[in-house]
């Protein structure tokens, strides 16, 4: 760039320096506050947690390095396997939210009178706190005064306390968890259905595609972005499940409804004592499991970016 020599006063030199470089410096100035806060509160703690997992630490007295002892102990801890297995059960059962959400979306994708309000009311459970949903369902399952009490006696299962039943407590919580999750998937699919090109549907219909074939060959492929997001949020939701367990069973009875997220909390911050190192080891394993999904998600985003989407 050619600049007139007369701009050589100190002031205008500085301002022209800024002018020349501002496009390079500005992004960093804009990134600094948010980026720093994020680094301090989100990125650094991941590494701190991983490092704490190699120590024995009660949170107060000095920590002592124990190598992989926490992980070794974890491998022999029956509660760890119960929690891990429950996470798997959560993952599998929670996936039901995706097809059920799709079914609901198909059912509601009409233009009858009042449908907008009906859709909002179907979506409603998602807006309410999981803690509140947990409280509501705890009372639902209550064997004497609960809502399902009459239903239970009808089936001859009087006084069956689902949440106190070692074999079924987890399913009881998952069922409650599905309630908002289905609503979430439904809204994703409703938006997806809304964006399907009408031409393609008409073309398909002209070619004689009907019902199931039309759905399978034309609709479902176009819903792929919605399906992808629905699966991502459902997997993350299943692995993050904490609130409902904390509210409904605290992992009980006898740890049978525990999951890694709650197990970690229990070890690190509850009456079981303050085992920060052990808790961090559990958190690290949960993190590594989730990292698989995160990396896959990032990989897909990267591919889309390269394609210029």
């Amino acid at each position, binding site marked *: 760039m050619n600049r007139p020599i007369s701009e050589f006063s100190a002031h205008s030199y500085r301002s022209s320096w800024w002018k020349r470089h501002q496009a390079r410096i500005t992004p960093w100035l804009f990134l600094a506050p948010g980026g720093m806060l994020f680094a301090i509160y989100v990125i650094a703690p991941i590494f701190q947690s991983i490092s704490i997992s190699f120590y024995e630490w009660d949170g107060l007295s000095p920590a002592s390095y124990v190598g992989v002892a926490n992980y070794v102990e974890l491998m022999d801890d029956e509660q760890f396997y119960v929690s891990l297995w429950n996470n798997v059960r959560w993952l599998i059962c929670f996936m039901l939210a995706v097809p059920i959400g799709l079914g609901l979306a198909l059912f509601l*994708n009409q233009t009858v009178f009042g449908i907008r309000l009906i859709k909002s009311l179907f979506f409603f459970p998602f*807006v309410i706190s999981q803690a*509140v949903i947990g409280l509501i369902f705890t009372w639902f399952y209550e064997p004497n005064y609960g809502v399902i009490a009459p239903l239970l006696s009808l089936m001859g299962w009087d006084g069956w306390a689902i949440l106190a039943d070692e074999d079924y407590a987890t399913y009881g919580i998952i069922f409650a968890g599905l309630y908002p999750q289905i609503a979430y998937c439904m809204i994703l699919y409703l938006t997806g259905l809304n964006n399907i090109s009408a031409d393609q549907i008409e073309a398909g219909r002209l070619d004689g595609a009907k019902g199931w074939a039309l759905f399978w060959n034309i609709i479902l492929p176009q819903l792929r972005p919605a399906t992808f997001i629905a699966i991502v949020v459902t997997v993350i939701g299943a692995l993050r499940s*904490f609130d409902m367990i904390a509210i409904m069973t605290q992992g009980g009875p006898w740890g049978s409804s525990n999951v890694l997220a709650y197990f970690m909390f229990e070890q690190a911050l509850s009456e079981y004592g303050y085992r920060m190192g052990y808790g961090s080891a559990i958190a690290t394993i949960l993190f590594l499991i989730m990292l698989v999904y995160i990396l896959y998600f990032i990989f897909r985003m*990267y591919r889309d970016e390269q394609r210029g989407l």
Partner: protein
Amino acid sequence: MFPTPIERTSIVTRSAYRIILPASLILWLIPLLGVMLTALRGPGDITAGNLWGLPSQWMFLTNMHDVFTNTPMFDFIINSFKITVPTMIGAVALSCMTGFALAAYQFKGNLLLFFIFVAGNFIPFQILMIPVRDLTFQLGLYDTVTGLVMFHVAFQTGFCTLFMRNFIRALPHELFEAARIDGASEFTIFWKIVLPLTRPAIAALCVLIFTFIWNDYFWATVLIQGQHAMPVTAGLKSLNGQWIAAYHLISAGSIVAAIPPVLMFFIMQRHFIAGLTLGANKG
């Protein structure tokens, strides 16, 4: 449109739909209807097992009065607002800047930084719990609203950055170029061109963050101990211990806790859904 519009189907299907639709809605909302009905009752009905009939005494106002006078529910609600509103403002303000930086400038490491913000969204909270609690202690902010807000702002910046960056990137880039040629500084471009155009994104983020933070339970239990700073989710849980089998009070309390996000959702519905379904219709 798929499925076939109901007007174009046979009369049988049409009538069936007309019946099944409201019936399924009622079935779906049973848990919530149950809570509303119970909040109207007195304790007598609950011990007598009258759950779905008409209340024998209408005690909604009494229950609400009980909830607000015998418990710190009012303080919990205020705390929730004190946590939610600053978080919403903070996270959205920071992410307008980070989103702009990542969307409008090409520099080395841009995509990497963006992916770090994205990845941060999906990590399990437990991996952050101990260091964040420790840091909050060291800052002298444990058991305070400020401490909780600081963390929420930092964490939500990840999600908001993802959202803002994609939104700003979809704006026509020529706008920035034209302004630069006219001699506008980078800051003017941000303030005068980008911010006004991102208003819909800001609205969507505000409702989403409001709902997420209002409904947070985990961090409220990790960073708050006393009732003086407790938000309504954690407060309700602590009251649940006192109200053994007082389901009419639990129901009334749950309704109070749910009203703000529900109102927010119904008022800002379009923005809420637009924000939530971001990415569900592209690719």
